[in-house]
């Protein structure tokens, strides 16, 4: 693990009117590691990653990418800088085919007679390449609308969209294993490991501590808008983390 974190959030506070969703939170993630963020509902996990991915702007605090201060005014800024997210809803347009979805908002174009048009053929072949080479996923069809694919295949399309960007360094995954069967969960976890092996910093948000301990290197525990600790999975147990999530130590003291 390198000394400088690939991405570092320092002293992040986020208020919505009178509600403080995040209070002075630090977070760092290294290249080639999986950092899990866990916490109860309302602990500020989603707000934290939305600040990281530029969807929200922090009220206070700074974000450093590769040691340099960065500010994102929207998600596109963050994506350009190499931070992208795969949301739980996957953000797919179900009526479009996988290739159209993979390039949604970022289409490949070509110029014919001075007019810029979409290059559907190239998008299709690129989709095929990314799915096969980087994710090792096979879809049942590249022509069918995305809603005819299985949950795991749809997720693969959403991940492919994020990893297609050559400059991607940090991938945030929001509940990737929620509502998945055991087999699909195993496949998703394998995918996360292979992304980690490709040198990405993967930030995983999950409620399933089993999954977290299976793939994550470190666990960042959020509780009531604050970070209550970061532990190495190798040196701790699901019981310890669970205790931190519900605040058992605090209450006992």
């Amino acid at each position: 693990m390198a000394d400088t974190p690939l991405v570092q959030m320092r002293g992040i506070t986020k208020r919505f009117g009178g509600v403080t969703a995040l209070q002075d939170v630090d977070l760092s993630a290294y290249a080639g590691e999986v950092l899990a963020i866990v916490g109860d509902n309302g602990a500020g996990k989603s707000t934290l990653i939305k600040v990281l991915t530029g969807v929200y702007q922090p009220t206070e605090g700074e974000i450093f990418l590769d040691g340099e201060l960065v500010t994102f005014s929207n998600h596109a800024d963050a994506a350009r800088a190499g931070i992208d997210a795969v949301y739980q809803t996957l953000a797919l347009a179900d009526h479009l085919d996988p290739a159209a979805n993979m390039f949604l908002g970022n289409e490949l174009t070509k110029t014919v007679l001075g007019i810029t048009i979409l290059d559907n053929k190239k998008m299709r072949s690129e989709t095929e390449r990314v799915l096969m080479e980087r994710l090792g996923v096979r879809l049942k069809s590249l022509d069918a609308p995305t809603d005819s694919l299985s949950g795991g295949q749809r997720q693969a399309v959403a991940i492919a969209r994020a990893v297609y960007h050559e400059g991607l360094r940090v991938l945030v995954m929001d509940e990737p294993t929620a509502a998945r069967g055991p087999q699909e969960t195993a496949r998703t976890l394998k995918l996360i490991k292979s992304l980690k092996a490709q040198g990405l910093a993967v930030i995983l948000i999950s409620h399933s501590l089993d999954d977290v301990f299976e793939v994550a290197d470190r666990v960042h525990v959020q509780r009531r808008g604050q970070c209550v600790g970061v532990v190495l999975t190798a040196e701790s147990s699901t019981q310890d983390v669970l205790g931190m999530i519900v605040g058992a130590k605090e209450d006992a003291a």
Partner: protein
Amino acid sequence: MNTAVDPNYKPPLSERLEPYMAVIAPMAMIAAIFAFMAVASPDRFYRISNLELILQDAALYMPMAMAMTFVITQRGIDLSVGSVAVLSAIIMAFLVKQFGFSIYVGIPIALTIGALLGLVNGLVITRFNVPDLIGTLAMDLVYKGLALLLAKGLVLARFPDVLTEIGRGQTPFFIPTPAVIGILTMVAGYYVLQRTHFGRYTVAIGSSPESAELTGIGVKRHKVYAYVLCGACAALAGLMLTGKQNAIQATMAPFFNLHVIAAVVVGGTSLFGGRASIIGSFSGVLLLAMMLNALVTLRIEFFWQPVASGFVIISSVALYAWIQKKDRDGAGGWFADLKTAEGQKLMRFSALLIGVLIALLAIGGVFAGDTAPSG
């Protein structure tokens, strides 16, 4: 095997057929009309002049149906096309007839005004967060009122030849000029849908506005674009209508809105967004034009036309809803539902309403006095 697709996967017939339903369904209905008319009134329906008339009628709706396909695919609806068409045509007519503008300037002015009216619709909907249905319905009243204010009851007539050519001209080969214009707009619409960012985002927005927003698509901006396109196409239709009649007055085009929406919906574009079919809209326009023409040919009273249009809309939307419903297991047909407790209650309620009406009619009939003429 170096492919990202499972080679062994064979989609079931229904899934393979689904993309083509938008064309198959209206085509089947068109074929049915052809077959019916071949029996009912072959000598009058199958005349070349009549087929040309059908094309000419259909042509008027083609640009609007194309644009409406985009609006509806984005989960929107534009109920103002009729008055946008009339208002932009009337402004053009005033400029040409009263202020001596050249028709070559008047036509682009009308199209631009249509686009601007569409822009107003789009901004009302996206900036003021007025639902599409209410927003365009209210703007329809505004535009209709403005058209009446401008023209009063006046009929502006006799325009330069260019305009009548657009409205009812004839190319050397069978197809009328307006149909050529209409088909060209349809072809352009097809390519815009398949090959441009606007087309791609239109489907994405209709499929899932949240996903579109998350992927960084300017949802509101592209909604505005769709309404602008719709306004411009409505203005084009207004010009075609003016040319066809060689006259324009503020009360024309009352049935435009529903007719255009009917054509688009019959063509398989989903009112719930995300599913677009330009070819379907084209077939839908043809189908409606043929149906109305058949009604005329069969000498059925004019006032049955809206009844028929409404019937076609309901039946086609119901048909698509039925096709879309993936699992029909255990549904047991449309009437099985009537046997459930809910169905029984609804049946009794309906029976009560009908019973009340019959009772009132009976009372009225029994105590009826002498009639007094209204006039």
